């Protein structure tokens, strides 16, 4: 049965900071491909207000994209929000800004009001919200259209803050999720957090893992194994440099590996508020020549790094999913994953460590470097999983959640 989903998204490629935008796009495309109708409501993120974003979905003719401008950004804290607000107020005519509130709370409220206003003419079967920023908007729209609300959780406040949540956001999340008719978690890992930390009954939660946004890259050239002889082996980290991603654990492991095998190099690709602190730390650990900070990298640069890397490490402290690991796998890079992640549930062909066990992380890195058969097998087996993990498959699972909630099962 084809459905019409009224979706409240947040970020959307190419304007995205994290996995949320990629996942949202994958899901929209998957649903459309299966013959469903999607009305996607998107806010603008801060400085992009003038950008007439062209989403370029030539085949997605059903998609009606509406954008609601808002000051909220997904990885905001009250401090950064206020800073941006001040900057914004200085750059734009007042008429343009006073649409939004002076703080995070009223911005969410404004978003909610606008979201309902903009979707009055639509006739959805279900409302689908992505993460806490869109929950109240989704709730109002669902109430207005008298259809069920499905809330998808890509990340919780607890993941983002290493269990030191902004209580206001945490409360918003909890209230919003309790009000939803059905919840979709991106992993069992996240489902467990929702049950344990948000007091949501497990029978209300379905797990639908993210699809892989990339097909496996042809492995005609497979440099991972052969290049060791001539070049420095390289270990790769890709991700925002925030506490959630565990960059300090990566440094710790680098230091242990370096002591035993000084020719290994470590690349940290990504930007974030911890960058300067990480650079200082790496210098004070004597890793100045060993750890290279690559900053935010383009798609092309990332591809080169994956192909050059002997091994990719995702040491996240709490990772609801971890799309970046799929990207590494698609490039045939052996991966070592934090056990505190959702992606490990779909990638059995990986080495797993607890994020805090940096000694073991170092051990796994050294083992992959020493044991060519291990590296080769991880490289050849893991990408096969991507074939099953298509967005079409995952969208069909979302669809069955829609059906379930619409039939009130």
């Amino acid at each position: 049965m084809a459905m019409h989903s009224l979706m409240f998204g947040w970020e959307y490629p190419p304007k995205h900071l994290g996995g949320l935008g990629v996942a949202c796009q994958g899901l929209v495309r998957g649903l459309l491909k299966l013959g469903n109708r999607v009305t996607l409501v998107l806010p603008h993120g801060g400085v992009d207000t003038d950008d007439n974003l062209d989403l370029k979905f030539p085949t997605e003719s059903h998609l009606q994209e509406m954008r609601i401008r808002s000051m909220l950004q997904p990885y905001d804290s009250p401090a950064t929000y206020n800073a941006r607000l001040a900057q914004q107020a200085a750059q734009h005519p007042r008429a343009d800004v006073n649409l939004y509130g002076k703080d995070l709370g009223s911005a969410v409220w404004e978003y909610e009001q606008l979201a309902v206003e903009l979707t009055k003419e639509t006739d959805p079967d279900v409302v689908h919200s992505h993460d806490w920023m869109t929950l109240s908007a989704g709730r109002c729209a669902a109430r207005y259209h008298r259809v069920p609300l499905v809330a998808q959780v890509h990340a919780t406040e607890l993941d983002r803050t290493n269990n030191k949540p902004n209580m206001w956001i945490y409360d918003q999340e909890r209230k919003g999720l309790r009000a939803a008719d059905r919840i979709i978690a991106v992993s069992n890992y996240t489902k467990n957090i929702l049950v344990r930390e948000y007091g949501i009954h497990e029978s209300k939660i379905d797990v639908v893992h993210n699809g892989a946004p990339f097909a496996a890259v042809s492995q005609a050239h497979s440099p991972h194994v052969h290049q060791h002889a001539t070049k420095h082996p390289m270990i790769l980290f890709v991700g925002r440099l925030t506490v959630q991603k565990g960059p300090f654990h990566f440094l710790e492991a680098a230091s242990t590996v370096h002591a035993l095998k000084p020719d290994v190099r470590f690349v940290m690709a990504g930007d974030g508020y911890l960058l300067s602190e990480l650079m200082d730390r790496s210098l004070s650990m004597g890793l100045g020549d060993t750890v290279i900070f690559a900053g935010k990298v383009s798609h092309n640069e990332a591809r080169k790094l994956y192909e050059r890397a002997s091994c990719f490490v995702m040491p996240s402290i709490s990772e609801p999913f971890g799309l970046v690991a799929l990207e590494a796998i698609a490039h045939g890079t052996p991966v070592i994953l934090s056990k505190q992640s959702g992606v490990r549930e779909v990638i059995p062909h990986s080495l797993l460590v607890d994020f805090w066990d940096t000694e073991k992380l170092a051990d796994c890195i050294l083992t992959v470097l020493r044991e060519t058969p291990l590296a080769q097998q991880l490289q050849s087996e893991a990408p096969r999983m991507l074939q099953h993990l298509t967005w079409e498959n995952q969208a069909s699972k979302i669809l069955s959640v829609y059906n379930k909630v619409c039939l009130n099962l």
Partner: protein
Amino acid sequence: MTPPLISFYFQVHQPYRLRDLRVTEIGRDGLTYFDDEKNRAIFRKVAEKCYLPANRLMLELLNRHEGFAISYSLSGVFLEQCEEYGQDVLDSFKALAATGKVEFLAETYYHSLSALSSLEEFCEQVEKHVRKIQSLFGFLPNIFRNTELVFNNEIAEIVRLLGFQGILAEGADHLLAGRTPNQPYTTPQFTLPENMQTIIKRHRIHRESPKSIAILLKNYRLSDDVAFRFSDRSWVGFPLHANTFTNWLTASGGHSVNLYMDYETFGEHQWEDTGIFEFLRALPHMWEQWNIATATPSTVIDAWGTRQKEIFDAHTHVSWADIERDLSAWRGNRIQEAAFAGIYGLEEAIKSSQDEALLDVWRKLQTSDHFYYMCTKYWNDGDVHKYFSPYDSPYEAYRRYSHALCDLKTKLAKNQNTKSEIRNL
């Protein structure tokens, strides 16, 4: 028509699982590879759930039913763990042996796949196992079963030349080609190369070899009804009662129905609350009433007498593992092959080092479970291999194993250096 003989054989084995070894420990003096705490904990758990209650029940049944007889194969590494962690378990097996109605089979001491790699090593391990069984139970085994029933023509011929009367194998459909597994078979006739015969002669267990070896085949359908399906609620045969099962056994016909399974079926794979012990308790009583006789592998062969045996022609290896019934559970991927090549590649160096401690750990690393834990063929679905693995993943299994191999190599190199220093003095 006389009903078939019923022949029970139970495999009893525990591996030495590896510690969370680290690169930084490699080369350290006195490094232990095995997780003593975990091995002890698992042994005690299985002892309480399976070995002790099952042995109590078997003893009761053997004492109560005159015609009841059973057979076991106890791996050498299991017996060593008995000595370390469970004298009570060992004593209970000795009590079973004392009834005189239990047949003990021979296998490779280390529950290894040495038959696939080194004839010399294989023979040494068989010899070591036979000596162990003799010293503990006063029983000289006549029948051989290879690790996980790994079998082919060549292994059968080696085992014949060692002097065994019979060998156990999986009743694999593709080799039976429609014939019943319920009668003894034999190998096609062929001659092993001279150099192999010479090695085998050095390790003969019995002075005489039989003209043809009897191959006893596991009836996997009826065996697995008990071992795998007994508590499966979605199975059409659930719940399985002793009389239904006995009907199936007699309907199966032939000379003997060979029920071969892991002993841990009783109480560990099938928990006590499934009623598995009650099921087992009811069988000998029912068989007595129905005039159905039980037999051990030796008596199955004796009862067959001089009748002609058909050929069971295994050019390639068969085993009792997974639906493939081949070697892929242990040698199906790159890490398994690397581990396998790694361990057997050290044979010469280990043996010429004449270091008993190194020889012992090298052999314990040959236990087939180490390779089984590295199996990835069904890893995607998370199945039986996962259930039986003490590690997070096949890759973790390989990480630990490869560290142990590296340490062995380092120690061998050290030994070598010391020796040449001594020579140069």
